[in-house]
């Protein structure tokens, strides 16, 4: 599957992976909680506590009554508000545990609004989490969070161990199962993710698990998902509508891909009743990619990914790149946004220095994945920084997926570029032509367009006629495949590059 964050070709609602402490904030933006009423006032002990406080409104009596309100989840009651006011007045005299009740604050190991991506800070968080799981080995969420941060610094062996521990502790829990399946998708193991989800005993009763299962099977063409069970689950769901939001959007996407636009719209409309961040991003993507319009479309800036696609469509590539970096801080285990930001820097903004600053010192080159390393090599070549480039090229060759024609073609093109920059023009041109031939043979139109366009730019110095032919072909392909960055940069000559983008959104 090829799908960049930028206008993915085949987007599905593959679950997001967030740490336990930021899950709700990021997954359900702007969610308003309803209050729940209970009959606690009839309780004998509550009446006794209330009478004691009325008779003598001391801190001890106020605390006792306040605790009863919290246990009954009554936050709007006038007496609760009076007691809260009293305790806030006496805040500095209160014991620490009561302070935490009066003015609760979530303890965050990662204090940033999004996620820390700076390696040293990530290491500090990892140490804190290690300490936490050492003393609380059954805390599956902290194990999963530890795996998350190991993934950020690309220490995958350790990440695998941590997510496996989390999965073994609570295999049927939707947060753990979805995070685990997303991790497997990043490890290029979607089949294993599908198998794992399929074997959950609660898959047919839990919409969060079923949506993850349908999304992954559909996105990776593993099997034709049966949406009947999903539809009956949505129709019969009496709980929180938020939980069925992604499932409804998954079903809508399948209906849309099958050509049933009206049915798809109906499901998307259901999903938008109480949408998650992923659903909003998905609907935004459908709007920009396939011009699907729905009633009450969410504002594109509600989600980062929605903003990225909107800016790309408006050809604001600089702002789009900034948003992509923001997206990386939102999902730091995925290098997809970085790869796309690098690609835009090279293809649309002619700014290889940005790629160098972003990627060169981020993680060791040995830990880098194919797309990011490729962009870094291209940026270095454009900036004539050829020190130790042979090592990077060899690492790139090790990272190539031989079963993936786009990956092989990218390697050929980048190596060709390195040869041409090194003065070996004939060998370089041969490699580039081989890359183009491979992409043509496989029918990879978008990649072919990019390759032809930049090859034409490079060749303009040596063979003007061939360069012009390639340019015209690339323009046709750019229009056909909506490659806006090439269509909008045709008038400004650039050096040949062949950046690569591959990720899972």
């Amino acid at each position, binding site marked *: 599957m090829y799908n960049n964050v930028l206008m993915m070709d085949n987007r599905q609602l593959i679950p997001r992976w967030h740490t336990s402490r930021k899950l709700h904030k990021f997954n359900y933006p702007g969610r308003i909680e309803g209050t729940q009423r209970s009959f606690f006032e009839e309780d004998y002990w509550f009446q006794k506590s209330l009478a004691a406080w009325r008779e003598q409104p001391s801190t001890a009596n106020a605390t006792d009554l306040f605790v009863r309100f*919290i246990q009954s989840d009554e936050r709007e009651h006038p007496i609760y508000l009076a007691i809260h006011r009293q305790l806030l007045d006496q805040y500095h005299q209160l014991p620490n545990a009561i302070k*935490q009740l009066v003015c609760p604050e979530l303890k965050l190991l990662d204090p940033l609004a999004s996620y820390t991506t700076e390696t040293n800070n990530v290491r500090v968080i990892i140490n804190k989490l290690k300490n936490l799981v050492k*003393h609380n080995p*059954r805390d*599956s*969420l902290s194990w999963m969070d530890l795996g998350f941060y190991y993934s950020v610094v690309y220490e995958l062996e350790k990440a695998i161990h941590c997510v496996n521990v989390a999965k073994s502790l609570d295999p049927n829990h939707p947060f753990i199962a979805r995070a685990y399946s997303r991790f497997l998708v990043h490890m290029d193991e979607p089949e294993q993710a599908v198998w794992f989800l399929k074997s959950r005993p609660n898959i047919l009763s839990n919409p969060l698990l079923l949506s993850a299962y349908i999304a992954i099977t559909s996105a990776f063409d593993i099997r034709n998902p049966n949406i009947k069970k999903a539809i009956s689950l949505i129709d019969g769901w009496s709980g929180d509508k938020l939980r069925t939001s992604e499932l409804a959007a998954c079903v809508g996407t399948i209906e849309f891909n099958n050509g049933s636009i009206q049915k798809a719209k109906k499901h998307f409309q259901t999903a938008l009743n109480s949408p998650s961040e992923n659903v909003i991003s998905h609907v935004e993507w459908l709007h920009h990619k396939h011009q699907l319009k729905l009633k009450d479309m969410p504002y594109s800036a509600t989600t980062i990914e929605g903003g990225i696609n909107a800016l790309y469509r408006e050809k604001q590539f600089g702002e789009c790149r900034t948003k992509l970096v923001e997206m990386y801080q939102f999902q730091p285990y995925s290098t997809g946004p970085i790869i796309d930001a690098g690609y835009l820097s090279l293809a649309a903004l002619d700014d290889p220095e940005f790629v160098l600053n972003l990627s060169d010192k981020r993680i060791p080159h040995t830990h880098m994945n194919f797309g990011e390393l490729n962009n870094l090599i291209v940026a270095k070549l454009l900036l004539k920084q050829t020190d130790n480039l042979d090592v990077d090229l060899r690492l790139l060759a090790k990272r190539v997926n031989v079963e993936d024609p786009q990956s092989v073609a990218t390697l050929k093109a980048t190596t060709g570029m390195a040869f041409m920059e090194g003065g070996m023009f004939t060998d370089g041109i041969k490699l580039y032509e081989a890359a183009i031939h491979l992409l043509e043979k496989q029918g990879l139109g978008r990649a072919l367009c990019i390759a032809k366009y930049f090859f034409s730019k490079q060749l303009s110095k040596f063979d003007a006629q061939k360069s012009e032919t390639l340019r015209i072909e690339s323009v046709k392909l750019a229009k056909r495949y909506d490659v806006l960055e090439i269509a909008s940069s045709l008038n400004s000559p650039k050096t040949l590059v062949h950046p690569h983008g591959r990720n899972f959104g």
Partner: protein
Amino acid sequence: MHMFGSLIYHVVSGAQITPVLIEESRLIMPNIDKATYEEALPFIKSAFATILDRFKDECVSNFGSDIASDLTEIVHELCYLDHLVRGNTKHSNKIMRLSMEKYISKIAGVLRKCHIKGIS
């Protein structure tokens, strides 16, 4: 068992453990009241870990690390959220696991250590 652990927590920190746990869990998962027991349990366990971490810090500053370690262990085992593993973790037999013998002995040890350190 749970109430005894909560009492120890209350004596040290000034509040029962249940409301503190409710508030901490709600910070992690705001809609926890709409979740089933199985779905909420990992979030509550994680909140419990945070509370115990804070409790230990408070105990260290009041009594020193040795007594703090004992008190945290007692509260951890007596108030553990999952009733299937609550109690003495060294025993799988339910009767032995839920026996108060260990905790009475631990508390006696804590009192002796406090006496030696001059903590009243």
